[in-house]
């Protein structure tokens, strides 16, 4: 069934969009990531203009993370205080990110920058997660247990001032690292059109050493607010939010996310991380290929007035 999208100004099969939304929503619920790092490239591959893909994706992530947050909230798996600190950083970061986005776009370098940022972040994080989870899986097979949380570890993080007690996460750490993580994620969210969960979840696990069971709920909670902000900014500044497209994606997405959350509970933590790492590396490889492969047309034509 073909449907015309009023802002994207193209006609596309509605079931393709529903299916895309469902598949990415499932992964979103499973891993606690917004799914934007998959959905944005997939939308562009289906012919949606990149700017509309980024703007609309923000709206869709709002809906998916809303239903995800509710599921985690009921299991008391959200550290509100931590989420608040992350959000404060995220709001500042996404505002800065929008300014960088506009500057890069007027220079015609935004596509390149987005791809480079994806390749860099996905590559590093995917590799780190993969080695860590493979090591954990091997250890579990050998009959040893590896503590997911090492409470005794005293790194540089514990030497920072502004210490706060995060009761739900059973942490007593400085507020500076979560603020910075929130800000970095906010910048990336605005520039890359993603929620930023794929950066935040590993950062919370490996840097802040939060218990894995509250990480997903807390990151979704922060993503919810940062993407809501990003969506409103994209709509206001660029008019690139297509609600018809968003509705189709999220109709599939919210349902997929619910199943994802449930399946996620049945899988073991290290297997989940290995799967996510694999996915992250696959997307990274695809984007890296796009950077070095000779394009079909060395010229690109876009509608719009100059810088």
């Amino acid at each position, binding site marked *: 069934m073909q449907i015309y999208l009023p*802002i994207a100004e193209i006609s596309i099969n509605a079931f393709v969009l529903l299916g895309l939304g469902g598949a990415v929503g499932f992964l979103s619920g499973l891993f606690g990531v917004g799914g934007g790092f998959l959905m944005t490239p997939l939308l562009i591959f289906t012919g949606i203009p990149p700017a509309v893909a980024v703007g609309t994706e923000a709206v869709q992530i709002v809906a998916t993370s809303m239903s995800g947050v509710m599921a985690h909230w009921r299991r008391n798996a959200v550290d509100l205080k931590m989420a608040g600190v992350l959000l404060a950083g995220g709001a500042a970061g996404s505002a800065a990110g929008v300014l960088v986005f506009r500057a890069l776009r007027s220079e015609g370098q935004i*596509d*390149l920058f987005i791809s480079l940022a994806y390749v860099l972040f996905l590559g590093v994080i995917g590799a780190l997660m993969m080695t860590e989870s493979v090591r954990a899986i091997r250890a579990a097979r050998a009959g040893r247990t590896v503590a997911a949380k090492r409470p005794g570890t005293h790194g540089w993080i514990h030497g920072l001032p502004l210490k706060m007690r995060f009761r739900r996460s059973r942490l007593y750490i400085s507020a500076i690292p979560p603020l910075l993580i929130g800000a970095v994620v906010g910048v990336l969210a605005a520039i890359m059109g993603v929620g930023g969960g794929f950066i935040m979840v590993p950062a919370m696990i490996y840097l802040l050493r939060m218990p894995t069971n509250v990480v997903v709920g807390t990151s979704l909670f922060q993503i919810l607010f940062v993407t809501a902000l990003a969506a409103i900014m994209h709509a206001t500044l660029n008019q690139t939010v297509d609600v*018809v497209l968003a509705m189709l994606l999220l109709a599939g997405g919210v349902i997929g996310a*619910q199943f994802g959350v449930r399946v996620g509970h049945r899988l073991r933590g290290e297997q989940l991380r290995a799967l996510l790492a694999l996915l992250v590396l696959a997307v990274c490889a695809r984007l890296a290929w796009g950077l070095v492969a000779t394009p079909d047309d060395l*010229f*690109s034509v*876009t509608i719009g*007035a100059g810088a």
Partner: protein
Amino acid sequence: MIRGAIAAVSFAWCALAAIATTAAAQDAAPAATETGTETEAAADTDAVAQEQTGGEAVVLDLSEKLIAITSNFTGARLLLFGNVEAPDTVTPALQRDVVAVVRGPYEPLIIRHKQRMGGVWVNTDAEEVPAAPGFYHVSSTRPLADIAAPEVFAEAQIGLAVLDFDAERDSAIPLPADYKQAVLRAKTREELYAEAPGAITFVGASLFRAEIALPANVPVGSYIATVYLLRDGAIAGQRSINLIINKSGLDRFLYNFAQKTPFFYGVAAVLMALLAGWIAGTVFRER
């Protein structure tokens, strides 16, 4: 199918009446406010076409003059038809050629050129075009090269080969040829620019018709369809008619909402997303 039926009926009606000038005049008024470049051409051709051709005149009409883009829009087929009023019955049809050009709303373009830098393809150079047609479709009775010399077509801006993007450029230097080719390539790929030699067919001695495919990504705005009558390698007459492509229904509402009050549109979109997420979260509540 309904569209086809209407087209068929109106085509038959045209065959009887062969006059459709009043409709063109009615449509010219709303279009004039939208774009400057194209309407100037239309205004004067409408008035003078009949007189200047020395007895031989061309009239035309479209199956639709207002195309509404609704949520099930997948493109449209526009039927263009008209009549060449011959001065006498002995003029052979083959000495006459008809070329129809449909020009879409003009919009600015940025063309960027990529080069390999350190293994990665990077946009290095850019050129701007202040006003390029968003849609440009040329249909003709024969290949343009067989009809007249390139200079004739260049003067009237007929055909992709002579399409000029330099009209409103600031710099005196014309757009480099490879950039121009890039625009033609990109727009042709999107099916927005096309040449269809042989697409105009004569039905009988004086009646002609052509079908023009409008793709789903056709830009909204005001269009002008111009029919040129060529005799002995020169333009002997022309006539223009306006066409408006607009969104309608829910799509029109959403588009206007997003364009006119973007902040509230954004807030509404987020609220809608929150509601959808909340509904899903409630429906799929874990036991």
